[in-house]
Structure formats: C-alpha cells, structure tokens
C-alpha cells in the first residue's frame, strides 16, 4: 500500500505558468516535507509544512492535516524548475514515506 500519493504524475507547462501539485497521505502524521529531486538524483528540501500555509520565494505550500493532504503551488514557472517534486510524510516511528513524485517539465 502506498502511504503517500501524488498527483499529477507529470505536468507540462509553458514558462511563466503556475503549477499546483497535490499530495495525500494515508498515515497519521504531523510532518510534511516537500523536496525537489534534480535529474541526477540529488534531493533538495523545499519546504517543511506540517500545517497551514508556508511560502518560500515562488513556492507556497498548504497543508490540511485533518484532511491528510498538502499542496505545492509554484508561481511563474521557469525552465529551471523542471524536475521531480516529491512529497514526504513522517510516521510516529521515525519512518519517512515518499510519494512517487510529480515530474514537471517547463517549456519555453
């Protein structure tokens, strides 16, 4: 069973368009973290957002823990935003569960 589901699986945008990525989770958690995975595999932490709305630059995350969902909004997309975005949640047992990711492609 996949504890974390992400949608869409892939997304193609024109430069400057906005993106909305969704994450839902089946486990009880109070920790939600969004990552960007570079094409070579390295993970970059984008936002830690256990509840409410958090913003970092062009990224805004909204988490509603009671509904077990989180979203990541990317505004004014750039070509360099292309890559895979991962949502992860941590269980009470020190285990971090990842979704399968949203592959974002931004075209000129």
């Amino acid at each position, binding site marked *: 069973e996949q504890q974390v589901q992400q949608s869409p699986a892939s997304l193609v945008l024109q430069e400057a368009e906005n993106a909305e990525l969704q994450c839902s989770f089946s486990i009880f958690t109070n920790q939600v973290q969004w990552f960007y995975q570079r094409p070579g595999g390295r993970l970059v932490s984008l936002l830690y957002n256990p509840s409410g709305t958090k913003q970092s630059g062009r990224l805004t995350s909204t988490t509603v823990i009671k509904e077990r969902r989180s979203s990541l909004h990317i505004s004014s997309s750039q070509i360099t935003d292309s890559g895979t975005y991962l949502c992860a949640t941590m269980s009470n047992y020190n285990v*971090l569960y990842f979704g399968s990711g949203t592959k974002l492609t931004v075209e000129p």
Partner: protein
Amino acid sequence: AQTIHQWPVAEIKAVGSPLSLGCTIKGKSSPNLYWYWQATGGTLQQLFYSITVGQVESVVQLNLSASRPKDDQFILSTEKLLLSHSGFYLCAWKGGREQYFGPGTRLTVL
C-alpha cells in the same frame, strides 16, 4: 554549517560481490541518520535509521545491513549483492523536524 558526504559517488559491482557505502556528517552532534534507496524510476524507500552510535533500526528488508560505528558515520553494506540492489542510495540527517540529504551513491549491479 552542517555538511553531509557520501562515498563512493558511483559503483559498478558484480552480482555476489560485497558492498560498503558510507555517509559522514560534519557540524552536527549526535544526529539522527537515515539510509534510503530508490530503484531506477521508482519511489524512495527508507531502509534504516539510527538515533545513536551502535544502534540501527531496520525499516525495509532488502538483504542489506547498516552500522553506525561513530557518531558522525553511517555505513550500508552487504556481503552478497543482488541485481535488485541496483539503484540510488541516499543518506540523510534530521535537523529539527526536517531531513536533509546527501548527494547519493549510484549503484549498478551486473
């Protein structure tokens, strides 16, 4: 500032051969450390975690083992590699509630 290193960067190994991957974190005392694995095109899975020297908890059984010989070091190993061990291995540490990842090791088993 904390830094996390993984070695080697990449490995090509034969089925049945031994493996040892390393992870070192500097600038953080007594960190929680984690190992993750990602098959090509697959989802990241946590393999092990350690909250203190000498103590390692297994999360997923993949015929791998882990050890924490020093406060700043986490080792992943096996005596006999399988084809299914191929993939990308990531080490991470926990700062506050967030996890931060190392650059990873890409393993190809032939």
